């Protein structure tokens, strides 16, 4: 299943609920577009809820890194929420788990934005 997203706002934080796969092609493009769209609207607090993302390939990992650095370079913050075990393990072996700010509780994650 390709990536599907829906965005909601909680206390000024844009929570992007993602489901499906973030892989080379459409999945990565969907993620890129949603982050670009939010930044274009001046929304720089982004929480990617990956709770229903069951698969990410190396292109998807690259897209997450790109989203993280793009948001950060524009003075914003991007955090990850609710990683599945598969995604958690992938971020561990690629040493990205400590690069991203990863949360497992939405309320705490929203409060963690400055």
């Amino acid at each position, binding site marked *: 299943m390709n990536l599907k997203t829906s965005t909601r706002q909680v206390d000024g934080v844009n929570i992007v609920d993602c489901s499906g796969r973030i892989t080379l092609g459409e999945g990565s493009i969907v993620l890129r577009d949603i982050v670009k769209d939010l930044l274009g609207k001046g929304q720089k607090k982004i929480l990617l809820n990956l709770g229903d993302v069951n698969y990410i390939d190396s292109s998807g990992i*690259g897209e997450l890194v790109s989203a993280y650095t793009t948001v950060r370079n524009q003075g914003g913050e991007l955090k990850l929420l609710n990683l599945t075990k598969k995604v958690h393990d992938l971020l561990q072996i690629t*040493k990205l788990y400590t690069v991203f700010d990863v949360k497992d509780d939405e309320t705490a994650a929203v409060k963690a934005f400055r």
Partner: protein
Amino acid sequence: MLDSTLETVDSAEQTATEIANNCGFAEDEVLQIAMAVREAAVNAVLHGNAYDPDKKVKLDFVRTEQDLVITIRDQGKGLDPAKIPDPLAPENLLKTSGRGIFLIRSFMDDVQISPSQTGTEIKLIKHVHARAGGGKEASQ
């Protein structure tokens, strides 16, 4: 022979899943094998053949007594494994690409990369456990 398209990448992953399941690998190993094949297919289609419609990808699965051996060949310029940067090096951690071969090596028991002027052949090997049964060979 497969076209240099994203459909080939998806199809290679799906075939790998089916064959790894038939070989009796555990669920997490099936996922690892399928992901390694996907990454190798992405390399072949995107970096090797550069989506060139005249260039093809060949995918072979062979089950030996000890191993599942998957071979993926492209018709690109040839990938020099010595030139692949370490994606875990601090200066590379935030790069947006360059993790494919690393993931393949992480998920498989042995990986052999053979570049030539007519393309790259990558051989992915996963040892079959004693409890794994069945056996299948396929070629695309």
